[in-house]
């Protein structure tokens, strides 16, 4: 991707288009990637609360894990997860594992 040159950038480092930061996918900063092992997840929602970037998604549906029925499960938005590891650190059942980025 070729970036704009000096005179193609608004002066003062001003961002003139509202909401354009959504296009800035910060997941590329990650060196460790969190993986949720759904079989160990007890749906306590602690990862969802602690994630500083709001990248834990609560997915509604019918999920049966080890004979238990759940109304939802958790997934990670890897477009924005920076791999800080807070979710893995806080998870009471160690259901989240940090693995090196490929």
């Amino acid at each position, binding site marked *: 991707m070729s970036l704009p040159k*000096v005179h193609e*950038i*608004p*002066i*003062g*480092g001003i*961002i*003139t288009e509202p909401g354009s930061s959504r296009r800035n996918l910060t997941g590329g900063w990650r060196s460790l990637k969190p993986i949720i092992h759904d079989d160990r997840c007890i749906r306590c929602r602690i990862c969802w609360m602690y994630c500083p970037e709001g990248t834990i998604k609560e997915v509604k549906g019918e999920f049966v894990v080890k004979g238990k029925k759940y109304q939802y499960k958790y997934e990670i938005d890897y477009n924005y997860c920076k791999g800080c590891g807070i979710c893995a650190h806080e998870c009471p059942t160690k259901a989240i594992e940090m693995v090196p980025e490929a």
Partner: protein
Amino acid sequence: MTAVATQIQKAKTVLALTSNYAVAYAVKAADVDVVAVYPITPQTTIVEKIAEFVDDGELNADLIHVESEHSAMSAVVGAAAAGARVFTATSSQGLELMHEVLHIASGLRLPVVMAVPARALSAPISIHGDYSDLMNTRDTGWITYIASSAQEVYDTVIQAYRVAESVLLPVMVSYDGFLMSHTTEPVELNDEEEVKRFLPRRERPNVLRPEKPITMGAFAMPDWYYEIKYQVQEALQGSLKTIEEVDEEYGRTFGRRYGVVQTYKMEDADYAIVAYGGASFGNAREAAEIAREKGIKAGVIRLRVFRPFPTSYIVKYLSGVKAFAVVDRAIAFGGPGGGPVFTDVATALWMNGIDVPGISVIHGIGQRSMYVEDFVKIYEMLRDGEKNKVVYMGLRL
């Protein structure tokens, strides 16, 4: 209205003003919207006078009482970002406390105007004048004027708004602390309606408005930061042309202009003193007269604009002399040239392949008395003495 009455109305208003009061009158004429300031001597009386104008209803501005100079600059940055015409003033430690926000004002390309009666820095504590505070702002991206009379201070503050709003850079207007800030001179005031026409309210692109949201002061990664800072460098270098054009138009409108450098008897000078500020320039001019009586072809160059540095003028005037001296009222501690402006002048000459011997004179530090005889001695040193060295004048060594 009778003809006589019209004539009286059109008569020039001349008041006896300190440079600080001259700033206040210029700010009133510029019809600013927001003034945020914290008191520090020798700047304080500027804002005392502005507060009077606001209280009397002569100036319709928000005067914000802040808790520090850091906040004063932050407040005017915010107001300027919202599109307001703003003013602040400070000196010495206050300017140091503002320092980080000075970079933000230039980086965001906000037309902030600030007055700086220049003053020495602690420690030891000094309330007296020199240019230590101003010289520390050298690399902040601000356009920097150094005026040499109360009249010029008044005229320059008005010019500063026009320049700032044209090139979208902040401007500071400096002058000798106490020697000018607290001494009274006659100042001819402009008709305020005419000043309003000289400073039209122009729509600025990219100001904070709820109906058109923008982001200011965002984070820039290494692949963006450099370009945005280069824009400041380019704008500042290019602003010299605007500064001259505004000065010319001001001259046509109000009858007074100064240029970016002012010279005295440089036409045939062999030896030049480069000075800045009121006291140095005044002494140097008198000394040039005395030196000429002694047979030394002496001249003076005064820097009216310090940033952007008027390289082309320095080169033009110094390339023909036998030797030059720069009188700095600040020390560039540990630097190669003694004084900060000497270092700039030497660089300007070297970059243009000009080899003229020079003397770096440090004087007037902490308002140490500078005498006309000292400046005569500089001319004698230029003619007879050793060159390419630093002279600490007036120092008990």
